[in-house]
């Protein structure tokens, strides 16, 4: 009873915050509501016993993605009125897609039972252990390939943003290390009463 009650509580919160994400006038408010929506879906994941996925969602989406998003939104100067003007044009299309997906979900939940046996998953071990069991054995190749995708993303981000400007003065460590005292310092013997002659 407690589980069912809390599920409906968090689900209702989730839907409400999602609506606020779309209809807030201020983009900063939208992003903050998005954070709240992520938090609520974290709770939903934890409720069904997928605590690893839930915590990862909290760390990655709230900790990194949403905060970056917030920075971007704060830095950009977006005209709110133009955004709202465009929304009306797409409402019928959005309703069509939403209707299709809603019909699919209803069809899946009412008429079909999945072959994935969730009960055996949940009862035997906890979620973190289960993921740890298959991540390095059954899905080893996929795991390593995801690492390669991340390497590519890193290289790509550097290539697209790095601009080489020859005018910028940089530290040249080689030439710094290879200089000797003779290049930099001149020893002069000064005779008393004469001073240094300018060559």
């Amino acid at each position: 009873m407690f589980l069912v009650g809390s599920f409906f509580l968090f689900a209702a919160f989730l839907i409400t915050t999602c609506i606020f994400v779309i209809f807030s006038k201020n983009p900063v408010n939208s992003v903050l509501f998005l954070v709240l929506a992520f938090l609520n879906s974290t709770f939903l994941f934890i409720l069904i016993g997928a605590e690893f996925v839930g915590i990862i969602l909290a760390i990655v989406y709230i900790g990194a993605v949403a905060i970056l998003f917030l920075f971007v939104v704060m830095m950009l100067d977006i005209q709110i009125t133009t955004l709202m003007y465009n929304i009306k044009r797409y409402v019928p299309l959005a309703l069509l897609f939403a209707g299709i997906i809603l019909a699919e979900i209803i069809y899946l939940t009412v008429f079909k039972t999945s072959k994935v046996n969730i009960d055996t998953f949940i009862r035997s071990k906890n979620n973190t252990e289960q993921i740890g069991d298959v991540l390095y054995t059954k899905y080893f190749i996929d795991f390593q390939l995801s690492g390669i995708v991340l390497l590519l993303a890193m290289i790509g981000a550097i290539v697209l943003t790095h601009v080489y400007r020859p005018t910028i003065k940089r530290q040249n460590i080689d030439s710094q290390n290879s200089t000797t005292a003779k290049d930099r310092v001149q020893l002069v013997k000064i005779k008393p009463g004469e001073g240094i002659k300018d060559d």
Partner: protein
Amino acid sequence: MINFYQFIPEIFILALILLTLCFGLFNKDRSIAINAVGFFILTLILINFGKDFYISTDLSLNTINLFVLSKIILSIGSIVFILLSKRPLKNENLYRYEYILFILFAILGSFVLISSDNFLTAFIGLELQSLSLYLMAAFNTKNLKSNEAGIKYFSLGALSSGFLLFGISMIYYDTGSFYMQNLNNFTTISEIGLSLVLISLFFKVSAAPFHIWTPDVYEGSPTISTLFFASLPKFASLIFLFRVYQELNISGIQSLNYIFQIVCAISLLVGVYGAITQKVIKRLLAFSSINHIGFMLLGIMSYQFMSEGTLFFYLIIYLITTFGIFAVLLNLRTVDGEFTKISQLNGLRFTSNSKSISMLVFFFSLAGIPPFAGFFAKFFILSASITDGFFFLSIVAVLSSVIAAFYYLTIIKNMFFNKSEIELLDDNNKIGKVIFISFGLIITLFFFYPDPLINLVDNLFK
């Protein structure tokens, strides 16, 4: 326990990536030579030991041959592409060794995609491939059009990846497995999921209702990247589409079969009608490639009564012709920079004989005019599809190639009989010249010595 023996080609490319990544920091010019040699070694390994890698797996001999042949073609194609890419990049002031890395990543993704037996690995391979394609489209960061092409490609590609993931999750919900061989008795949910997967794959190969990105991306990105989009990744995605069609036995499922046929017909027609009004050569080639994708889908559908060789033969000829056309285009420059318009090709004969004759050979081959290899490619596909009973699609295909001949021939006429409007500079790129002349010879001499190419395709499927 995972059998690592079957991943040797992928591991080889990964080693090449890491080598280039470290070595490129110190010596930027050598990375092209290193990778060309690396892919040459990979080709030799695949030709000699390719089949041994997969012997311990429980794949059928036909599938193993498919893997090995397509990997050989991909690595030969990468040798040609890497050698070709140096000069155009230097001309545009774009030469950085990261570009070679992107090629390697895309080829690695294609290899993974081709030999993946489950949808999860296929998804990661497809992502690896398309992520590097987005980067190659936006590689010219100082050019606004290139940036626009990159962003357009990226946002639309992300949308199609979303479709792919949604479809895969529906298949997983229904069957409890990612593996293709576990998918044998379909329910409605699997069919919907599979159709979403197919939509995403159609997007990647730019088949017709999902082709909107193609002309813009082709036009905006640097020409050398356009060559890459049109050739090797598209080849890999088509092979995967072929495997999905074959292993999941889509011809037995009525609804998905209709999707295939509709997409094929629309591709054939859109590719032709879109191309007629184009003035920019890269947009024209984009629409022409959409038309050819229609032919390839027809080849995929009608595999039952012919060998896989039909499709493979068409793909090889298409790759050779695309490489040839782009090698000619990359060798030409106007005074202002890269040349873009079709009308600038006018009077090419007076500038350079070898280029205009090669262009004539390639365009005749694309149009399917008899002595050239393109005719035989189209002929094999059409005869297979007629044997298989796709009469309506075959008629559409023939009509579309008649209309296509109109704009190919217009270009050739302008090239040979019109006065040139603008002075074309010869880039004098030796490697490019060798490539387009030898590819032109392959296309022409196929009529007289068909044995090598036919045997190559036939032996590997026996």
